[in-house]
């Protein structure tokens, strides 16, 4: 059993252990769940340390027969891109546990169910990034919707049932389109002499361009709903405003990354020709997402939907970086995925604390927060700065790389994307100004500052944002080999630099 499989099974085992604890002892349940998530984080860090960054092949691989009739395997393995996303996941889960220590207590079910769902979700989140068998990927991709559905519907607030339903229906619809494409891909492999679901072998199939286009769309729409890209985004704001802060963090920070991850892992390596065909259209959608998300974010009165719309804008950047297909923009996009994960976590968690303390999620209900709760206010401020990609924070590095890379090939798109940065400054600073600066209204005077538990929860997130901002090299070095492999697979090279003689 490889270390990767152990990492996958550990949270599941944790869910089982939690299942046997007495439901009445909520504190014990939380402590055990937290202990397991910390253990998972530790194992993932150990795994990362033994990862060979110069090797572009899949590492820690393991293959076991699952359904022999279709040659379906339990096949896992990770490359640099998967590694950084898994690390992000395993670090965010304990953060979320710690940050939302009490958010499970007002749900429809007891605390135990909440942590069981979250630990199961963690196994699936790690699994979805490590699957190297398309069928396994698909199964996890679909199955992981259910824990989220129950987390939103069971522990959220407001119109949570409707939000959960909308989320699930959108995702399942995309999933079914993808299922048809997965089957199509499998049948092509059957017809070409080797029935397989192995990602590497499927990348080598020769598929005619019409079929490529259809199958590409099957995968892409599923991922575009997941990511979410305009115009497939409408489920996101409702889900983000209804879910608990922790669930939103995992939903936008990790699960949505599966969409952009899938675009890179599947769309590009299986269908290089179709990728080229659709690139102009997708770049357009990406630019629309950047601007649309940013414009709508400016107008939001609710903090959570503001964060949701900023994310739509950021996913536009990621998609732009992916499909611009230069080594800079692609590396930037993958790095962006990690930074967005931590950045969104910081935003949702600090916003969640603010909302919990004030009892309202309207930005207008806050004000002068820094006088009464300085640590909370400054944490929110830093999270906001990360969202607007301030130099010195990691998101700046990735956004810069994306735009730089994209400019070489699609200057217009890159310039329009730059507008997104300006708008970002506007929506972040407006919100920050309204919420934490100015006079403290009487209604906000009683807001308490972060306690020790909350400080411990937010500290690693902010530390990572700052550290990777000043010293992004380790992350970029891990991501680079993946970028090169993808570029080679897709048969593209960087545009030659214009040399002035």
């Amino acid at each position, binding site marked *: 059993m490889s270390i990767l499989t152990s990492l996958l099974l550990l949270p599941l085992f944790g869910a089982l252990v939690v299942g046997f604890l007495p439901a009445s002892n909520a504190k014990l349940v939380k402590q055990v769940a937290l202990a397991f998530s910390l253990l998972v984080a530790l194992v993932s860090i150990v795994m990362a340390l033994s990862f060979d960054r110069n090797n572009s092949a899949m590492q820690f691989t393991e293959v076991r027969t699952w*359904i*022999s009739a279709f040659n379906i395997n339990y096949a896992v393995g990770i490359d640099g891109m998967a590694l950084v996303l898994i690390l992000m996941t395993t670090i965010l889960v304990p953060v979320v546990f710690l940050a939302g220590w009490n958010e499970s207590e007002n749900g429809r079910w007891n605390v135990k169910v909440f942590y069981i769902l979250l630990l199961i979700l963690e196994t699936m989140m790690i699994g979805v990034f490590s699957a190297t068998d398309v069928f396994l990927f698909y199964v996890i991709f*679909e*199955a992981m919707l259910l824990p989220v559905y129950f987390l939103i519907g069971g522990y959220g607030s407001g119109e949570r049932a409707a939000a*959960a*339903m909308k989320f699930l229906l959108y995702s399942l619809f995309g999933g079914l389109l993808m299922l048809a494409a997965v*089957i199509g891909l499998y049948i092509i492999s059957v017809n070409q002499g080797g029935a397989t679901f192995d990602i590497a072998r499927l990348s080598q199939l020769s598929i005619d361009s019409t079929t490529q286009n259809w199958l590409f769309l099957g995968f892409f729409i599923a991922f575009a709903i997941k990511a979410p890209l305009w115009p497939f985004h409408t489920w996101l704001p409702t889900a983000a405003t209804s879910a608990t802060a922790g669930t939103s963090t995992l939903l936008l920070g990790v699960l949505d990354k599966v969409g952009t991850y899938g675009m890179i892992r599947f769309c590009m390596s299986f269908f290089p020709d179709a990728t080229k065909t659709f690139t102009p259209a997708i770049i357009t959608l990406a630019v629309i997402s950047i601007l649309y998300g940013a414009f709508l974010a400016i107008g939001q009165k609710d903090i959570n939907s503001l964060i949701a719309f900023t994310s739509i804008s950021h996913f536009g950047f990621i998609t732009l970086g992916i499909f611009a297909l230069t080594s800079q923009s692609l590396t930037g996009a993958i790095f962006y995925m990690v930074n967005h994960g931590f950045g969104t976590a910081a935003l949702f968690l600090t916003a969640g604390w603010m909302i919990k303390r004030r009892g309202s999620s309207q930005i207008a209900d806050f004000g002068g927060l820094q006088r009464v709760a300085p640590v909370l206010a400054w944490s929110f401020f830093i999270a906001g700065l990360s969202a607007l990609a301030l130099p010195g924070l990691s998101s700046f590095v990735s956004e810069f790389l994306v735009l730089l890379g994209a400019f070489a090939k699609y200057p217009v798109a890159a310039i329009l994307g730059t507008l997104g940065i300006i708008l970002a400054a506007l929506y972040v600073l407006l919100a920050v100004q309204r919420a934490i600066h100015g006079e403290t209204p009487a209604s906000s005077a009683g807001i308490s500052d972060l306690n020790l538990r909350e400080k411990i929860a937010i500290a690693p997130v902010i530390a990572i944002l700052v550290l990777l901002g000043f010293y992004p090299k380790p992350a970029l070095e891990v991501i680079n080999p993946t970028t090169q492999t993808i570029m080679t697979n897709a048969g593209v090279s960087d545009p030659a630099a214009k040399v002035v003689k």
Partner: protein
Amino acid sequence: MLSAPNLDYELLAPIMIILGGALIGVLIEAFAKPAWRARLQLVISLAAIVISFNQLVRVRNDGSSIAAVTSVSVDGAGMFLQGAILIFAFLGILVIADQDNFAPQASALPGSAEEAAAIQAGKQQTEVFPLTMFAVAGMMLFPVATDYITLFVALEVLSLPLYLMAGLSRRRRLLSQEAALKYFLLGAYSSAFFLFGAALLYGYSGTISLNGLTDAIRGNTGNDVFLLLGIIFLSVGLLFKVGAVPFHSWKPDVYQGAPTPITGFMAAATKAAAFGATLRIFYLGLDAAQTSWKPFIAVISVITMIVGSLAAISQRDMKRMLAYSSIAHAGFVLTAIVSLSENALSASLFYLFAYGVATIGAFAIITIVRDSAGEVSDVNRWIGLGKKSPLVASVFSLFLLSFAGIPLTSGFVGKFSIFSAAYESGNIMLVVVGVLSSAIAVFFYLRVILMLFFTDATNDSISVVIPSILTRISISISAIFTIILGIAPSLLFDIAQDFAYFLR
């Protein structure tokens, strides 16, 4: 001189054991004390099923196309479905054994003094056991029959007891009797179609056997008009039994009116039997004429999937909703008939089993959600059940998720294998329609789950009765099958592949 027909008793034994069990059941009705009947009947029925299954397992490798001269071909697909039907019968009878679902005296008029007296006297409905066993025998014969006469006999043996059983409901008896009458009339009508088609095909080929039909088509000896009309009429009879659109109109009414344990059993086992015969007729008898019927069945399959899924959305009754979902599922299996390949055959075998088990489990759960007036099938009254009985609601959701084809349930593997077989045979349009109608279907399954878990109950009048140990066993086995076949489908899929053949 007339020679005695050559019968392979070993291969016919599974059916005969069931018939024997049914006959003993009749004798029990005649001679045993009323107080003992229910228990005796249950033991005899289950014993017959177990012995029959055991015999089936013993002869599993000795398939023969001349088990009873040329009328019965006990081959892979036939044996697989016989086994599936026996398992459905076992699970179904465990639920049927809960006497509270049946009218104590079916012959008494609803609301009459006679009926009240029967209830007062504590009479129990035990004829349902031998009736079920007769139906099971017919269902086991239907998928292995290879000539029109045997097919027709099997069809009637399986149908007649079901017509009666549909009318046995203890509560809402008028609805139940109406269902029985509708089922009987429409069933008789479709039998007539079937017979008419058989007669035309006999006129075409001059023989009653499916093998003779194939030879005639290959040799191109007959009049094609008879062939085409024969195929159409025969198909109508079969499509009625599987509940394909536009021959589905009986299904919602019968599913709703019949006693719920019967509905569950019928939905699972009749479908397996009817599809078994349909698959045999199209794969074996009409294979050579595939260009003439494929478009017809493909169109039926498409409208069945779409109409079933769309109509299910507006249903307010749980049993009617499952009836329409069953119609949509029939459409999925029909795609396997159009695909006409070995992979499609093994996929549909797996699918029929996976779907059947989940169906019995789902209907068994409906029997235990009750208020003071009996079981509650109004969807809106299930609101908040997840709070009251989390376990029952979770298991019911599991079955719904399997119907919806969510990964890690048996339904997903079934759907995946059927779609991939359809894709492989080039019927990509069917896959697309299948995927779209699945997307529609997901909506109404999820809506029910949403009601169970995320909505607060407005009244407290419904409750979940503590199920009898037998019902509990049935539900547990169904749930375990649904999960295991979702996680490790190879356990059954490899068997389905080994058994995916018809003998000529």
